[in-house]
């Protein structure tokens, strides 16, 4: 299993000279499969470039799994080139709200005054599927979902292929309910990330920044480290970078994460656009 990161910025896209190394596009991760289908996690602005790449590769069958519908995870969808290609079949999986279906929630962003075109104008064949539900099973791969702690209906994902596993938790504030390694079943997303090889986890804030933003739905680097240790995951990938953080500041946070992790575990990594994570 291979994952390619097309966007790892949180909240809002941040192009500019201070973000060239780790990237300014918002959340989007491609799970690279061996067949002619594509599996995509989230539709932040990173999905725009991925869409062009998928069409170049001749991919016509795409499954998009959305963790939630906050704009930084959805805003790239309208500019996802396969959407505007009638040869493409696109399944969109994501959380419904207690009262509104996934389809209706997404259609809101495809209508004036937010967008000049209507969802009816989309030529690709689209189907919608609500999450969480039964695992999605592909050839040699399984995708599990579960609700996680973040404002509004939000899910996290766990991908399993053979003996490898990855958890994707880009927007997650488990500290709000506690990260007690002695009670892992009470940790939000604990089962999704348990013993995973990689955890792509929200690490938006420094410890000092978090104190002013408790309840906003995101984690400090320290909490991301705590979570990774509590669930027994092997390696943390710091994700959902704060828009105000430059490349240099992100590297300081990475250093802090490594310090907190200690020498007995694999050092955390900073997610960056173009990074490919390889699993056995």
């Amino acid at each position: 299993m291979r994952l390619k990161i097309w966007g790892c910025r949180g909240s809002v896209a941040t192009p500019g000279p201070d973000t060239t190394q780790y990237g300014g596009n918002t959340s989007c991760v491609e799970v690279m499969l061996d067949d002619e289908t594509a599996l995509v996690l989230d539709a932040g602005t990173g999905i725009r470039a991925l869409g062009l790449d998928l069409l170049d590769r001749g991919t016509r069958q795409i499954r998009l799994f959305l963790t939630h519908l906050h704009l930084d995870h959805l805003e790239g969808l309208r500019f996802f080139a396969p959407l505007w290609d009638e040869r493409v079949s696109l399944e969109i999986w994501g959380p419904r709200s207690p009262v509104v279906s996934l389809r209706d929630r997404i259609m809101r962003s495809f209508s004036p005054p937010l967008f000049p075109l209507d969802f009816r104008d989309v030529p690709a064949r689209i189907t919608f599927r609500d999450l969480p539900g039964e695992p999605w099973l592909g050839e040699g791969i399984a995708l599990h979902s579960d609700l996680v702690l973040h404002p509004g209906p939000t899910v996290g994902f766990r991908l399993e292929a053979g003996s490898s596993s990855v958890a994707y938790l880009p927007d997650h504030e488990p500290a709000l309910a506690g990260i007690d390694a002695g009670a892992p079943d009470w940790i939000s997303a604990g089962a999704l990330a348990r013993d995973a090889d990689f955890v792509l986890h929200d690490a938006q804030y420094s410890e000092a920044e978090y104190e002013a933003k408790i309840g906003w739905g995101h984690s400090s680097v320290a909490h991301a480290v705590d979570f990774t240790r509590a669930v027994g995951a092997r390696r943390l990938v710091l994700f959902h970078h704060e828009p105000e953080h430059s490349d240099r500041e992100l590297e300081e946070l990475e250093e802090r994460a490594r310090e907190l992790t200690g020498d007995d575990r694999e050092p955390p990594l900073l997610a960056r656009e173009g990074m490919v994570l390889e699993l056995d």
Partner: protein
Amino acid sequence: METQQQKQLVLILARAFASSLSTPTLLADARGYLVFYNEAAEAVVGRRFAETGEMPLDDWIAAFEPRTEDATPIPPEHRPARIAFDERRPSHAQYVATSADGVAREVEVSAFPLFAHTDEFVGIVVIFWRA
């Protein structure tokens, strides 16, 4: 994926909420098992939750011998917790209970069901108020 031990997110949030209250509060899951009570409840019960562990809620409540003022035992199906669990509706009652210190006290009990996003019943919250 091993999911058997994972608590439902709404229960996780309810536990965090109850942990912050000074009012004795307990949680039961969709099986009807007591899965948590807070420090305020520990003070009344006289035992930490870690010592009690998960157990059927009916058994736990029965230990306090809930009864009316004239000492008539209140059957489980008339207790707010059981009503909230069985009938999936809020319930409130006043009764006498004997707490860990052996003292009989009048308490008011409020219980209500918890439903997750797709109307999935995930458990109940029970709050005890000193009458």
